[in-house]
């Protein structure tokens, strides 16, 4: 089990990691989700031993790793741009870690064959690395990291440089692979679809801090604060006063989920919670609409605030609209 305790890394005046704590249980896949330059790659490098901590500790099964150099940690790392060795072919890339363990040629070849088969790259051993496509290189990089059977697999945006369709397909494959191997993994990404699709738990990181750690469902349904919500693409945060199951906001009255205390509150309203209803209590004017395929993304000005809604049909810009809100799509925000 991996434990990161209050890890801090500074580069000059910049704090890349700011007392970040996180744990990964055995066999668990944890995704670190955050925007670019949020410190997530630094976290990964620190765990791999490629970056020293200024403060804090990193423990594996309770023992401090700070004195253990990268090559003795037994962690595998898949780099964002794969970092395949250009002077070695596919097979020798995959065998590299096994060779470092001192395994004989026959055993190495057998293991490399097996792990290449697992990533569906059988028979590619003698291919030159430079001739691989992006998806193939990604598989080889994964196979290379998996071959020595690391205690912990670290993945640094391994799908980040691939195009969208390939990324979606590989996300699914990767989930099966990680689940099938029962490997403990830490997966860094800026893509919430990837994070939700792959991970048992998600840690949302920004400015070097962990803003929220939880299952994908928890994070999606109950974002800890406005920053998490905004990072998930949820922008309707309304200041409200709650009284008897209803809330007054600048945009109009908003129904609240049960169990919310009376008094001032900040409410998150999902874009999908809105629907057009002539009897709706929210009155506004459409300011812009963009066709998104599965509906329109509409910006509506109501009571001086802008709300974002996803609607199957929408009036043109400038036209008035009345909206109803599904209480299921409203949740309180507690953190910053």
């Amino acid at each position, binding site marked *: 089990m991996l434990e990161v305790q209050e890890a801090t890394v500074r580069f000059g005046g910049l704090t890349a990691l700011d007392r970040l704590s996180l744990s990964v249980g055995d066999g668990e896949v944890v995704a670190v989700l955050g925007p670019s330059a949020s410190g997530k790659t630094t976290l990964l490098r620190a765990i791999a*031993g490629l970056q020293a901590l200024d403060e804090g500790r990193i423990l594996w099964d309770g023992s401090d790793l700070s004195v253990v150099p990268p090559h003795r*940690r037994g962690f595998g790392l898949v*780099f964002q741009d794969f970092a*395949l060795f*250009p*002077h070695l072919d596919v097979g020798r890339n995959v065998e590299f870690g096994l060779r*470092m363990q001192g395994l004989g040629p026959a055993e190495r070849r057998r293991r490399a064959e097996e792990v290449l088969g697992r990533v569906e790259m059988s028979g590619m051993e003698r291919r030159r690395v430079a001739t691989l496509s992006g998806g193939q290189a990604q598989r080889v990089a994964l196979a*290379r990291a998996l071959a020595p059977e690391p205690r912990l697999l670290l993945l640094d945006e391994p799908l980040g440089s691939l195009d969208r369709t390939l990324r979606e397909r590989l996300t699914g494959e990767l989930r099966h692979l990680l689940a099938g191997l029962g490997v403990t993994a830490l997966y860094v990404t800026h893509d919430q679809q990837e994070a939700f699709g792959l991970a048992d738990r998600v840690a949302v990181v920004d400015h070097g801090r962990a803003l929220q750690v939880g299952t994908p469902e928890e994070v999606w349904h109950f974002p800890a604060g406005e920053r998490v919500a905004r990072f998930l693409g949820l922008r309707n945060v309304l200041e409200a006063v709650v009284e008897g199951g209803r809330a007054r906001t600048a945009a109009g009255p908003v129904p609240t989920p049960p169990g919310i205390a009376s008094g001032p509150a900040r409410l998150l309203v999902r874009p999908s919670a809105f629907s057009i209803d002539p009897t709706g209590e929210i009155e506004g004017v459409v300011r812009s609409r963009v066709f998104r395929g599965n509906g329109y993304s509409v910006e509506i000005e109501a009571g001086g605030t802008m709300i974002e809604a996803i609607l199957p049909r929408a009036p043109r810009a400038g036209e008035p609209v009345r909206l109803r809100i599904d209480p299921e799509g409203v949740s309180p925000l507690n953190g910053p």
Partner: protein
Amino acid sequence: MTRRRLATVLLAGLPLAFLLAFFAWPVGSIVATGLFPGGRFDPDPFRRALGGGLPGIAWFTLWQAAASTGLTLLVALPGAYVFARYDFPGKRVLRALATVPFVLPTVVVGTAFLALIGPGGLLGFRLDGTIWAILAAHVFFNYAVVLRTVGGLWSHLDPRLEEAARLLGAGRWRSFTTVTLPLLRPALAAASSLVFLFTFTSFGVILILGGTGLRTLEVEIYRRTTMLFDLPLAAVLALIQMVAVTAVLLAYARYQERRSIEQSLRPAGEVARRPRNWREWGLVAGTLLPTGALLLGPPAVLVSRSLHGEGGWGLDFYRALGQPGRTGARLVDPLQAVGNSAGFAALATLVALAVGLMAASVIAYRRGRAGRWFDALLMLPLGTSAVTIGFGFLVALDAPLDLRASWVLIPLAHALVAMPFVVRTVVPVMRSVQTRLREAAATLGAPPGRVWREIDLPMVARAAAAGAGFAFAVSLGEFGATAFIARPATTTMPVAIFRFLGQPGGLNFGRAMAMSVILMVVTAATVALIDRYRPPTLGEF
């Protein structure tokens, strides 16, 4: 961290010791000889130097270098453009051929031009002893510097930048002057500084083509030392020359520091294309044909004259190399010279490679101020003329152990001259090995030493081989330093050629031609091998 530091100290130590013994000490001895003859400060050599035509010689050294540099740029830039932007049949071969003059020993270049415009020259008129012969030889010699440095960068410049400028409304000429030229400026500055430095310290070419009238500082140092035995005055000249060279190097370094732009370079293959129409084909041909005549003419004439003796065509001159010839008081054994050259070159290559690799790894892996200083320090021998090094060896290395009479001095001097080439070839490749590849190896369980062996070494090996080839070629052709320290029994091929040229008679002249051809062929073959196995600069990854 401390183990890392210890490794650095050990790696840096040997190159430093080498420089101290065979560079700093000789240079120090020159200072002592020039300024403190007899152990005390004495301005007399200085005064005599000023009275003895020094200002004239210094002025000539300076302006011939400036003129040579300007002329070389003028002649070579069109070639650099054509090589960078167009693909045409035979490009590879032509590029390799264009590089050959630069690696030819200066003595061979001098001899080739002598064959063309010297006594009995092919063109029918004599230019030896005039500035024109010197300028022509310098352009011939340095063409490749501009082609490689400027053309090299040019061939990686993204043509889309110029296209962007065109779309923003700049005409063809303006987009060249506002986009391409500024981007090329680092390479232009590097090439001009190099050419200026080479021509400022030109020795073999001027000794052979300058006749008795045209003398640069280098030639004068040699003359004062070997003919007039006036060591203090020669030392003063060497000092002045070192100061001038250092000034050029410093100016260049400052310029580079101010000017470095991060450029997004593209693999050369993506930039060059076939000429599309007759105008472009005409441009390519119109540039390459005169260049070909300039670069291939002198060597061709050299070969033909080496085969044409008094008795008509034949191998007489080559056969004459088999017999020792008496040139004046000195006995020159051509076969022995060939053997000496080969042996010295092999030894010099080994030393330059070993010391150079150590130095390169310090420069490449230890960044920061210390690394930069070390880098500059190692380039000093490159900036110092070979004549200064030879002269320094001559005046320095008598105590504590008298090495002056030892043959070991020659390969050591060659190694000193060649080492910067090794460093320059290897450092960029070492630096290009991305940190992430080393990190990847570390996370896969490779300890630091193993990382170096598994990742760096295989990638650097080819560059090291190329560096060794350069060192070999440099040593084979080295003349400036060797001229001071070679004894009759340790004569090398360039020195033998010079001695033959200095003697009257068609046979001696022919022997010089024949031996020049042999030296030219061996050097060209070495360089062709390097070019074949040279590591690609912008890699496949």
